[in-house]
């Protein structure tokens, strides 16, 4: 797609790069302006000390100026340079202190956006690939350094260029040769480089995977117990052979283009300059020795500089691509958004799902179709079914992480879209199947917020007790204030799968919610712990509405009503007894699980 657009859209490119600079300017104007000033001063320094100094000295010597004047002038130039060094040391100091502040500014903008965009964005690999990678590869300082380089480069070219033109304009033409090469052939050269990289990208990925297989702990057992390592060796060998082939195909082409460039800039421009300068000085006698020296010494530098700026400007649009993504991420309009003026959630009476259908983006088969379901205050509802039947999707829709494609969800008879989002989500206490703990304290993990007070600590302790994990937490050096994970505390607590799940369950006890949703909350627990957990759960939720999702049917028996899902549809519903006597899908599933226990009781009776 990018390739069809042959012309660079300069306006757009500058706008994008300007956007990044704008972030720095907004976060910390001092850094921006200081950087701009520094680039001009540095150009002056480079010109004075790198070029002009010699011209002046040689001209003065030839003209026989008094030694004192010459030395004083030279020392003045050195003094300017010293002042510039002092200035740039101050600038570096300033940047170092301000960069973290700029980082924090940008982080706050991006993270606010990230935690408010619709969840579906995160589940969409394309979104993830473009936007999150854009954030990852975002480098405002890189853009700033490029801008500084261009400014000081242009300033230097002007200064040296004027000097050279006053000597003889023909040398400036020579200095333009590399740029002409880049403009004419650069594109082809870059394309070959790009093709080479593309060919290798996949192969690198394979090679890296093989390497991971050999060092990651996850693989270590299988690698020792099976002979998969042979397969991995073969993969490595294959990918390296293919890479050798790519080198054979592209190596000489790359060599040709890079050589041509070096030949032009070093041999052609350099030698031609020397020969012309020598000719003018020696034969024509139209050039002074000082000029001759200046031209010979500065021509390669300025030619390289001109070329660098040309290439940088040409490549600006490459940066521009990720900035495009970044900007559209920031401008992304959240579909499920917080609306301050929307309704506050009333006392919960009834939740109804009416004829709801939902299709995940990019899929054709609905994850849920024509679902009708009612939950009254105080009821215990079980949602059961095989893996992939749509149970977890239902939970996400209930919590308004997604909106249905068809049908509606009503709370006390009002469509949930009419309620303020955070107020509505606050209705639910949820334990997910794929629960996560944060690298924060235990108390923060339980309450899911910061600013823990002493009162909060008591609440947390109580919740942990009920979740059956307080003993473990109490044994930690800092109790509920202990850090979880070793992420940034080497003494941080590490919980096993079952323990971590208990902590997430404690979340339900700590904060009062009207509706509790448990999505397979016991998958990581052993049977006794599971039983205890349910007992606690139901005691704590006495009088509350509970929706629980499980494929272990033993827990479903405690429900007032059971919904059996299959392929996104509700196939059966009713009490446990009703469903058993229906002798349908539910009954079949139940018997498969129960039979292995059922006939044993006689042996013990």
């Amino acid at each position, binding site marked *: 797609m990018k390739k069809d657009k042959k012309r660079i859209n300069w306006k757009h490119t500058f706008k994008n790069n300007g956007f990044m600079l704008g972030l720095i300017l907004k976060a910390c104007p001092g850094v921006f302006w200081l950087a701009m000033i520094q680039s001009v001063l540095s150009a002056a320094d480079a010109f004075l000390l790198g070029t002009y100094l010699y011209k002046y000295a040689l001209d003065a010597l030839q003209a026989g100026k008094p030694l004192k004047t010459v030395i004083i002038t030279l020392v003045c130039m050195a003094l300017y340079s010293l002042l510039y060094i002092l200035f740039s040391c101050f600038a570096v*100091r300033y940047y170092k202190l301000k960069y973290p502040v700029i980082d924090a500014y940008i982080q706050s903008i991006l993270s606010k956006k990230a935690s408010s965009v619709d969840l579906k964005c995160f589940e969409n690999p394309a979104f993830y690939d473009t936007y999150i990678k854009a954030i990852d590869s975002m480098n405002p300082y890189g853009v700033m350094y490029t801008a500084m380089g261009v400014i000081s480069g242009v300033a230097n070219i002007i200064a040296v260029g004027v000097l050279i033109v006053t000597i003889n304009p023909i040398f400036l033409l020579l200095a333009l040769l590399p740029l002409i090469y880049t403009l004419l052939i650069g594109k082809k050269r870059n394309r070959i480089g790009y093709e080479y990289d593309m060919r290798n990208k996949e192969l690198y990925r394979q090679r890296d995977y093989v390497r991971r297989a050999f060092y990651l702990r996850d693989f270590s057992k299988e690698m020792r117990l099976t002979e998969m390592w042979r397969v991995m060796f073969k*993969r490595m060998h294959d990918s390296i052979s293919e890479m050798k082939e790519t080198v054979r195909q592209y*190596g000489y082409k790359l060599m040709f283009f890079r050589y041509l460039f070096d030949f032009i800039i070093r041999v052609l421009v350099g030698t031609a300059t020397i020969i012309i300068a020598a000719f003018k000085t020696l034969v024509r006698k139209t050039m002074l020795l000082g000029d001759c020296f200046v031209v010979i010494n500065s021509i390669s530098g300025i030619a390289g500089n001109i070329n660098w700026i040309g290439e940088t400007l040409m490549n600006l649009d490459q940066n521009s691509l990720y900035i495009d993504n970044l900007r559209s991420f920031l401008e992304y309009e959240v579909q499920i958004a917080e609306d301050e003026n929307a309704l506050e959630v009333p006392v919960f009476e009834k939740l109804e799902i009416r004829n709801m259908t939902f299709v995940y983006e990019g899929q054709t088969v609905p994850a849920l179709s024509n679902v009708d379901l009612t939950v009254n205050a105080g009821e215990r509802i079980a949602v059961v079914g095989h893996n992939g039947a749509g149970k977890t999707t239902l939970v996400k829709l209930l919590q308004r992480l997604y909106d249905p494609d068809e049908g509606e969800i009503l709370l006390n008879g009002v469509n949930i879209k009419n309620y303020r989002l955070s107020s509505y989500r606050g209705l639910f206490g949820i334990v997910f199947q794929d629960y996560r703990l944060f690298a*924060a304290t235990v108390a923060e993990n339980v309450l899911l917020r910061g600013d823990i007070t002493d009162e909060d600590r008591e609440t947390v302790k109580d919740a942990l007790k009920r979740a059956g994990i307080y003993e473990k937490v109490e044994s930690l050096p800092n109790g509920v204030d202990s850090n979880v994970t070793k992420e940034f505390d080497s003494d941080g607590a590490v919980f096993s799968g079952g323990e971590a799940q208990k902590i997430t369950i404690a979340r339900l006890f700590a904060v009062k919610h009207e509706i509790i949703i448990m999505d397979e909350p016991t998958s990581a627990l052993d049977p006794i712990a599971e039983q205890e957990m349910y007992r606690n759960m139901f005691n704590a939720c006495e009088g509350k509405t509970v929706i629980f999702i499980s494929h272990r049917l033993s827990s479903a028996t405690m429900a007032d009503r059971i919904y059996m899902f299959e392929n996104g549809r509700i196939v059966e519903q009713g009490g446990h007894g009703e469903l058993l006597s229906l002798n349908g899908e539910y009954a079949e599933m139940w018997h498969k699980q129960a039979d292995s226990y059922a006939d044993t009781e006689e042996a013990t009776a």
Partner: protein
Amino acid sequence: MKKEKTNKKKNKHNPIRVSKNIWFMLRYSFKYAPSYTFVTLGEAFGRGAWHIIHVLYIKYLFDAIEAGVEFRTILFWSLLVAGYDTVFELFNKWRLEVYVRRVRLILHEGVQSELYKKAMELDQCCYDDPEFYNDFIWAIRESDSRVVEIMEDFSIFINRVISSTVILGVLAAMDWIVAVILLVSVGLGFVIMNKMNKVNYEMEEELNPINRRLSYVDRVFYLQDHQKELRQGGIAEHMRNDYQKTTGTKVAGIKKYMGRIFALNFAYSSLLDLIPSAGITIYLVIRYIVDSALSLGAFSASITASFKLYWMISDLGSYLNKFHNHSLYIEKVRKFVGYEPSIKGNVTDVPMFESLSIKGLDFVYPFAKDKPKTLKGIDLEIKKGEKIAFVGYNGAGKTTLIKLLMRLYDATDGEILYNGRSITEFDPGEYRKHIGAVFQDYTVFAATVAENVMGGEYTDEDEESVMSALKAASFDGKLKQLPNGIHSQLTTEFSDEGVGLSGGESQKIAIARVFARPFELIIMDEPSSALDPIAEYEINQSILTNAEGRTVIFISHRLSTTRMADRIYMFDAGEIIESGSHGELMLKNGKYAEMYRAQAKKYKNQSMI
């Protein structure tokens, strides 16, 4: 504090150690790409010659112009120099774009193969030792880029040493004072640079935990895993505030070092930016005027040479620094390459399985010595054809015992006998060929279904075994949906067309592994944890039918799965507390019975309705 100091000392390598380490790495290049040395030396000498030619050429040029030598002579020499440039550049580009690219690959394959083979010899316990594991990851992960980088750096280093020696000689011959000024200022520059590195290092050390905190918060916001929780409660706000607060700490931390960094930075820049350019020019101008013997050619050549020299020597300094870092890295590689595996054995002729007995076995994880024993006084006996179940709560030691049976670890005390012989006598690779195990934390590789099932390379003769193994693991339904059948690539690691399997489906692949080869003993560690009830039921039935005649060890905390075992071992806190058949244990009315009833009750009562 004291401890920190000694630690730091350990991180400092003296030049001898550095050279030994670099030498260690260079040997790989001699071994796998011997021509590399010659090409490198060729480039170094060619470049050295290039530098001399240029300095002498500049001297000649200006002297000739000043002396009014005939233009044709100048033209001749200029073209000759250009000719050398043309040829040398061609050689150099060939080296960089073609030769080095190829050598990189050759070195990669050679070195990685050696390291991987060594990695396979590592004992499983190495993965439990965080320090060793981190070093090991570092050694392997960077081996690819590092090995070549070290060779390249070394070749540039040689190049610089040769070139700068040559130029120094030329320069000293023209004007020894310039050479001395340069050497002194560059020498001082080194000292300051060294000091600056130390301060920077100290600062980085202090900022490290702060930066880790910042990057964690960043990660949390963009990782898919945490998104649902971030939309609940105030944790997102809390994380953001944390970032701002931590930034404040970071700035304060940087401020502490800024005074020293500023002073050193200023000293370094004024020394190295001013002296070689303005300083030497002023000196030469004075000399040129005072001493009429100095020609314009010598003046220009001195300036050119001192620039080259200054640039090369300061570059040399950065390479010394790099070598020190390389040395730290190589030390890790050597530690890992020099590791002697403790799990080994000489007997390669392992007989068919008859019996397994465990006598008085104790086990502590090697890197958890201060912790209580994971297994205590285990005694058990398994005969050919038996179906054995290990049950018990999470963390009771069941999985650990399996790891010992597979010889991923060796017992701390007591022994495991295979057909009456200690398993430590056998070569671990050969021994493991008799036992097939599925672990709770199974891994599916980015390879074809067939390779995954064979647990290794697949040939057409294996087709039947793979098909029947997949059927036994009830994967045949899913298999029909796969575009390329058993040759479908699993995971999207390598290609977007790769098949992503669900947890349950992956587990079935792992289970199929034990059926694909004629293992005499099969171990199933929670084989159905990711499966729904119907799939679990099917798998259990199928395991029983397919394992007929073979010996099976089951681990599960779903007791319905383990009921049919010939003998059940109940584990609690690392010990076997009960053993016997299901009936016996129920009669005994102990812990097993309690656990069993807890699970069965819910199903039972309700079924009676």
